[in-house]
């Protein structure tokens, strides 16, 4: 059981935020503005100027959303999933749903989500989503469609838990957040009959149940619990609150809060990244390990894709493989070369490094009989979370800092385009962001080094917990990987930025 609740601060007891979060339609308070923004982006993406710098569909997601979300995950939690507009049609989807089957067992893991992350970042580079308002709008439309279809077909929130790349990214890094859903009292959960937090309080017909709740002094009290068509669905990602030890898979929808008949679920403050030091909070499976390790390496590849050396590397790969002389169109060559870069950078290299590190750790500590390869990788996987988040903050934070105010002239331009001049008759294109590159560089260094140091602390604790006196030799291979990653990142972020949509291989 989670040990959060006893003396922790419950944010849901705050006067305004808590009240809104506990309201039946409280989530809509966050979702509706996001829905309006999403619709605006789709509209401008399809009908507005097709220059990325002048269209809301490219400015908002690729500059502001990315920059804000990584900070929000670290400082607050998974607030975007809380306000996710893509699940608003789920009520209609549920009405259209037939028998409501479960998601196929073979897919009930993170591999599909990892694939979708890989795919969205690959397409981001290959199709130059960052440069195309229309394509970005199509991505947003695709999110709505995919969420709707999966909600209609399956009983659980399969899109959120098993597919959505945005949500998967948020899940992974919400593990560093200072908040977590938890029970206020385990005694109440222990005696709860209906477990409405996961089962929900929805029923097609009204059912009234009278529970006999034992008290501490040996008596019982009666608690009337009503299930009805106005009830709240249980946790869509099938998390059972009293057993929650992690933010993984929690979308902060607050359905558990609203469904609990005993008002026993809260959003508790906790030590940031607490679960990174709790071995029981992580599933010791390959998919979970590869998710957090692969995401960190994906951050490196994503940043590498924006600096000049990547174009030379791509052309060298094409030349080495003879693709340039094979008569293939540049777009096909780019697809092949990018895929190779992604496969090596996100799959093969991290896989090889971590498997080698796990093997070396087991050998030097003579624990190859005690801990399997999978368990060793899984044990050290949480250590990659802080550095991964640091890499993403350094990258996305850069774009956000230098372009935070660009949304103003873009929005002015949007209004003027529709003959609305309340914000002026001409966009103020001089608005940008932080112009002091030294400051931006310092922010990046702080993010990278902060993430690296935090990762090292976690890795060291893991090593001491598992290997006692052999902790230092056990730690060494993992420390080398983390150190190499941060050095590579510092080198990448030193490079001047150069984003090209067209690469010629001839």
């Amino acid at each position, binding site marked *: 059981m989670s040990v959060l609740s006893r003396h922790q601060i419950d944010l849901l007891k705050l006067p305004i935020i808590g009240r809104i979060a506990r309201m039946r339609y409280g989530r809509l308070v966050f979702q509706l503005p996001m829905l309006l923004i999403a619709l605006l982006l789709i509209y401008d993406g399809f009908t507005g100027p097709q220059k*990325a*710098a*002048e269209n809301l569909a490219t*400015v908002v997601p*690729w500059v502001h959303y990315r920059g804000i979300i990584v900070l929000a995950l670290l400082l607050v939690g998974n607030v975007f999933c809380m306000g996710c507009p893509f699940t608003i049609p789920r009520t209609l989807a549920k009405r259209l749903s037939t028998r409501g089957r479960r998601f196929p067992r073979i897919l009930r893991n993170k591999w599909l989500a990892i694939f979708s992350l890989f795919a969205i970042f690959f397409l981001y580079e290959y199709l130059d989503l960052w440069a195309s308002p229309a394509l970005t709008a199509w991505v947003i439309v695709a999110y709505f469609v995919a969420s709707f279809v999966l909600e209609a077909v399956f009983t659980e929130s399969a899109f959120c838990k098993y597919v959505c790349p945005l949500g998967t990214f948020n899940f992974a890094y919400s593990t560093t957040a200072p908040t977590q859903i938890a029970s206020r009292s385990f005694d109440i959960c222990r005696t709860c009959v209906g477990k409405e937090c996961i089962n929900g309080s929805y029923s097609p017909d009204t059912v009234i149940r009278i529970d006999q709740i034992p008290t501490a002094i040996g008596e019982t009290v009666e608690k009337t619990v009503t299930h009805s068509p106005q009830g709240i669905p249980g946790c869509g990602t099938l998390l059972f609150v009293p057993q929650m030890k992690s933010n993984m898979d929690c979308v902060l929808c607050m359905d558990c809060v609203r469904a609990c008949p005993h008002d026993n679920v809260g959003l508790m403050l906790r030590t940031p990244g607490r679960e990174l030091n709790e071995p029981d909070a992580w599933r010791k499976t390959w998919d979970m390990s590869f998710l957090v390790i692969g995401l960190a390496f994906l951050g490196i590849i994503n940043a590498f894709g924006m600096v000049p050396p990547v174009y030379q590397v791509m052309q060298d790969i094409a030349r080495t493989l003879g693709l340039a002389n094979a008569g293939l169109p540049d777009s096909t060559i780019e697809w092949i070369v990018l895929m190779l870069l992604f496969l090596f950078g996100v799959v093969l290299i991290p896989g090889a490094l971590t498997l080698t590190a796990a093997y070396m750790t087991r050998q030097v500590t003579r624990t190859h009989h005690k801990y399997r390869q999978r368990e060793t990788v899984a044990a050290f996987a949480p250590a990659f979370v802080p550095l991964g988040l640091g890499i993403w903050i350094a990258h996305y934070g850069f774009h956000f800092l230098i372009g935070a105010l660009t949304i103003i002239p873009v929005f002015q331009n949007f209004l003027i385009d529709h003959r609305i001049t309340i914000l002026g008759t001409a966009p103020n294109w001089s608005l940008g962001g932080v112009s*002091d590159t030294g*400051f931006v*560089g310092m922010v990046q260094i702080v993010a990278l080094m902060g993430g690296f140091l935090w990762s090292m602390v976690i890795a060291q604790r893991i090593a001491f917990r598992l290997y006692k006196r052999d902790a230092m030799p056990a730690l060494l291979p993992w420390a080398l990987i983390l150190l190499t990653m941060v050095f590579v990142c510092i080198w990448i972020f030193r490079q*001047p930025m150069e984003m090209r949509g067209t690469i010629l291989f001839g």
Partner: protein
Amino acid sequence: MHGSVFTRLLVLLLLFTIAGCRESAQETETPDDYQMTLDVESDSVGETTLLVTLLNAESEPVNDAVIDVKGDMNHAGMVPVLGSSENAPEHGVYRVPFNWTMGGEWILVVTASLPDDTTFSEEFNINITAEDGNMGGMDMEATEEAESALGNVAALAPFIPDCVATEEPQDGDITEDCSIPEEDKGGSFFPPGGG
């Protein structure tokens, strides 16, 4: 039910109409009786001059236009660079001072305004190589200089409240210089410098 469907169709029609009426949807391409070309003096990061040539249908130079240039990068979040022709053109060639602030693909919109209020624009895509630019401002070369140079106390200027020795002591003398250069002041931990 029918009223509801009709209302939805009406809203859709209205949306399409609004979208079609967007000013950005109104093309202002170069009329057939003019031709505009663009050359650049340098395709590397830094200051440069754009050479905009404007000719009429008879391929004769047009020397009475005002040329404005707006340069955006192909990705969002960058401040556009604006430029205008300053001096009188020669043989229809307008010189526009410009600054490639970053490497990558640029989209230049060149607008010509004629005395008869005719205005038209052309879009040009240009690839700029990043030689001297900074991506995230991590001026590590300057940092290395600061770390290696024993007397380079100016690098730590933001953190030094009082006058300090800024020159290597010679023959036992210590020279104090409280006039820290302006460019070394400010909130940046890393001293400003090139590439």
